[in-house]
């Protein structure tokens, strides 16, 4: 009898364990879960569009069809050619300048006093208000758009880098010095890798802000690129096309952030891979 009970409980225990294993296995499929998340979002969008929430709110399927149409007639690719140039230029400049200035301020007291207050004010200010001013000075070309990206992206990159460098693990710096590391080696081998998680958090925020900057510039000042495409379809009440354009830039921004995270883990912090 007792044996029977024990066997039974063992069997139950085994069953529970294997079920849990299956659940874990299912949860360990992040790709599948992400697809489910996207499908769920598309489904809710479709339903909301069919109710409809607003006459200006298209369904997911209509938006997707419009997206294919925009690619087919070349207007979306053409808009991206015009938008991506200042965006890429602005983000790359902000990334290098921002990490450089932030590191300098983190290591050098005078630089900190000179620059950090400026960036704190810039980060607190509603910088979008500067964009008309930038147009006034630099016209409506590429320079103005690039500057719009930079004034939004730079402060958060500088401030994050500065904070990360200031809070570097002092004991690793001492270790590097004791093993005869030069000042340059201390910065490149210890300070930057140690600060990289926070620097990359700043870069992600900066890149997202850069997307905001370029779209704002195109909506406010230079009717070109993605901003122009949004304005154009809104004025014609082509809401599906308008939403398709907006969704495409959101998707691109998300993709950029994912790539950035991948670079961070691959290049700078390999120990966090799979953790």
């Amino acid at each position, binding site marked *: 009898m007792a044996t029977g009970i024990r066997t039974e409980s063992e069997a139950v225990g085994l069953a529970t364990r294997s079920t849990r294993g299956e659940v874990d296995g299912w949860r360990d499929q992040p790709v599948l879960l992400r697809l489910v998340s996207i499908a769920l979002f598309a489904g809710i969008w479709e339903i909301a569009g069919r109710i409809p929430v607003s006459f200006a709110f298209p369904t997911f399927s209509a938006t997707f069809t419009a997206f294919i149409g925009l690619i087919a007639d070349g207007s979306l690719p053409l808009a991206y050619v015009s938008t991506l140039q200042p965006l890429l230029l602005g983000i790359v400049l902000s990334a290098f300048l921002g990490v450089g200035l932030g590191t300098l301020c983190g290591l050098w007291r005078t630089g900190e006093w000179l620059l950090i207050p400026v960036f704190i004010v810039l980060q607190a200010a509603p910088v979008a208000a500067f964009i008309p001013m930038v147009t006034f000075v630099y016209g409506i070309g590429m320079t103005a758009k690039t500057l719009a990206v930079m004034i939004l992206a730079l402060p958060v990159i500088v401030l994050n880098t500065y904070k990360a460098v200031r809070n570097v693990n002092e004991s*690793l710096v*001492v*270790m590097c010095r*004791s*093993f005869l590391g030069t000042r340059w*080696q201390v910065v490149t081998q*210890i300070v930057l*890798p140690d600060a990289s998680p926070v620097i990359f958090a700043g870069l992600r925020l900066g890149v997202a802000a850069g997307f905001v900057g370029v779209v704002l510039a195109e909506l406010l000042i230079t009717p070109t690129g993605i901003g122009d495409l949004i304005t154009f379809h809104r004025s014609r009440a082509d809401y599906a096309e308008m939403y398709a354009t907006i969704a495409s830039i959101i998707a691109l921004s998300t993709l950029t952030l994912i790539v950035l995270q991948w670079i961070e883990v691959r290049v700078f*912090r390999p*120990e966090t891979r799979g953790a």
Partner: protein
Amino acid sequence: MRAAVLRKEPSSMPAPIDPIVEVRGISKSYGSTEALRGIDLDFPRGKLTSLLGPSGCGKTTLLKIIAGLIKANAGSIAVDGKVVTAPGPERAFVFQDFALMPWATALRNVAFGLELRGKARAEREEIARHYIAEVGLAGFEDKYPHQLSGGMRQRVGLARALSVDADVLLLDEPFSAVDEQNRRKFQEDLIRLRSNQNKTFIFVTHSIEEAVYISDRIVLLSPRPGRVSQIIEPEIDRSGDPDLIHRDKHYLDTVQEIWQGLKQYAE
């Protein structure tokens, strides 16, 4: 009876033969707090000397001054007869908190000192592999520090210090962040390692047992301000079974003697 065990050395006695590190008149203050006052010490070549004392006696400060990581207010440090004021290739440091780069594997951490000196990758990794095996970590070369236990991390720290081939190893309470069982094992391994490495060890500890167990020479420091109060040379035979040392009469007597001297500083 104690006199048989301990050889007290008044400062008037001649310096031991062939000191590799000479400390002359070192004083250090932090603001109004006097950490070290007029330290004169010689560290004999090839020996393991411990700096032992209660917290606040400045033993870690003295070690970091010898390492060139902290500047003294007065006095000088000479290694092999040459006055030094900054870190140099003849000294290597083992840190209390291990100071391993979390983003680097054990292999890269061990090879880091050589990497900073610009040694080619293949060459420095070969040396690093040798010392990783030497400290008993073979097979863990590609692990990251967070995948290793405290004791294993400090073995990485020790291998890093060994691989730069310095004559003097400076160890700052290397076992204080390691759990008791691993500490005992590590102490035994250190005794074994010492016998096949021709190096001078300067070892900071607050553990009397640890100091007596591993040291050829113990420098007792007294606190506020830090001064040399006594130098003891425990005459313990470490060639046999390391477990027997813990039951050795000289070992037990020396521990007791030091405790009697340090008791007054306990709070």
